[in-house]
């Protein structure tokens, strides 16, 4: 653990560099739920397509109306990279860290993926397709950072 411009930095955990949501009405419900450790996503009321990040139009049917649906907060690793070279010296203590794309259970997949830091994982053994679950870091500002960690399936 090191303390620097990014706050407390520990290996494997990319420090939250944004601690405010800059939300609008399209995204605020996401952060309201996140503050309560719940993962929600907007689903098109016309065609049922999820879109994450929340956006103003459905990319399948162009409608705007949505209903907010609570998701299980689990998913699978779609792809990832192990970042070994820090892009800023103060990020050095976080390296190596693993970041990539997660496909969320309860959604159609593409169009509702999240890009996240995978934590509590062994970079040498993490694999595409591994099941993962969400863990939240909360800030007083109303921002929460979602990260995902492997689910111990007893492999």
């Amino acid at each position, binding site marked *: 653990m090191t303390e620097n*411009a*990014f*706050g407390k930095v520990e290996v494997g955990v*990319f*420090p*939250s*560099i*944004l*601690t*405010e*949501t*800059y*939300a*609008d009405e*399209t*995204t605020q419900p996401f*952060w309201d739920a996140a503050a309560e450790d719940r993962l929600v996503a907007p689903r098109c009321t016309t065609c049922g397509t999820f879109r*994450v*990040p*929340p*956006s103003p139009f459905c*990319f399948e049917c162009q409608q705007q109306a949505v209903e907010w649906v609570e998701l299980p907060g689990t998913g699978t690793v*779609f*792809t*990832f*990279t*192990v*970042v*070994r*070279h820090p*892009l*800023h010296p*103060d*990020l050095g203590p*976080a390296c*190596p*860290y693993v*970041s*990539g*794309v997660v496909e969320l259970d309860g959604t159609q*997949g*593409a*169009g*509702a*993926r*999240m*890009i*996240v*830091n995978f934590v509590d994982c062994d*970079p040498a053994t993490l694999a*595409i397709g591994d099941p993962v679950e969400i863990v939240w870091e909360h800030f007083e500002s109303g*921002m929460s*950072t979602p990260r995902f960690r492997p689910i111990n399936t007893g492999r």
Partner: protein
Amino acid sequence: MSLRESAAIVGLGATPYYRRGESYPQTELEMAGKAILSALDDAGLGASDLDGFAIYSSSCDPAEVASVLGVPEVRFAAGLTSGGGGCAGALGLAAAAIDAGMATCVVTLMTLQQRSRRLGGSAVDGVLTYAMMSDSGSSPYGGGGGLPPSAAFTANSGLLSPGHSFSLLAKRHMHLYGTRREHFAEVCISTRENAIRRPTALRKQPLTLDEYFDARMISDPLCLFDYTMESDGAIAVITVAAERAKDLRQPPVHILSSAHGGTGKWGPAIFRYFQAPADEFASSGHRPIAKRIYDMAGVGPGDVDVALLYDHFSPMVIMQLEDYGFAPIGEGGPFVAEGNIRWPHGSLPVNTHGGNLSEAYIIGMTHVREAVEQLRGVAVNQVEGAEIALVTGGPAGLPVSGTLLRR
């Protein structure tokens, strides 16, 4: 109706290539001027003939260049949106302007001086800005508008740079198709072999497989040698109507076909949300472009004699080989391992100039230059009898682009 063979590249000019920052104290404007005047002179033309700018990645401000070089009248000034993915497509933009009668003599160029800024560095620079500013609630972008609401869904992911983005595509390609680091290495090594013979190349020491595997891992599975270098320099090409090209100094290089764009769902995804459909995710995003340029030209992959493929990251060469139909989808790795992209004896010599990986990275314009030199028959690593060259820009956020050129 199409722009097929309506225009031709008739002039080529460039400054020397430099390692990042070493072109100082020349400015980007000065280097742009040198490359443009050199390209005009190569064609037997002058600044008084120039009337159009067809650019990409905001390479220059045509207003400034025109006033500095004394261009009498600007009749066309347009650029493709986004970044380096538009490189090859800017040639199509030039041809379109000429075909439409909007301009007669059009320059496409890139000029790059990275003493105080770095390509792909915006996200990196933004990291500390975020960290410093977000506590106070003020916006790094000024104007009181704050960050876009989407920023909060990406900023804390740890994915910051182009290398991080492309490593995700590479990892997925390896997972789906069994592509291996040895395949990436072959791209790097064959490209280096081509660079070694060229006086213009910035990396001329041989690269061995052992050195490749000993190199520092940056963003696994991409190591140091899988990344392009950072360079300075300027390159310009002049395009005129095919009819006019006959009377100029150099043998014309015809713009056979050109396209830019890509699948809508690819969008800006490659740098932001990664929402591309699963069957296209582990690709270069070039499949729609390939179809359009082959259709427009009336040729196929088997007609291409030399391919200048945008190589900011080595795995993207393998994916483009698939997407342009030189290898079946998923078999780009074995295709390079069999020696197919080697000059001079491979079935499809690729990046005979040493590419972005080993010659210089002028955001793709070195590829355009090499295509022109190959088709003029004056390339250092000449492909014997080359008649058709493919040059590409990207993968990147849309547009990506491709252009077929004919001797």
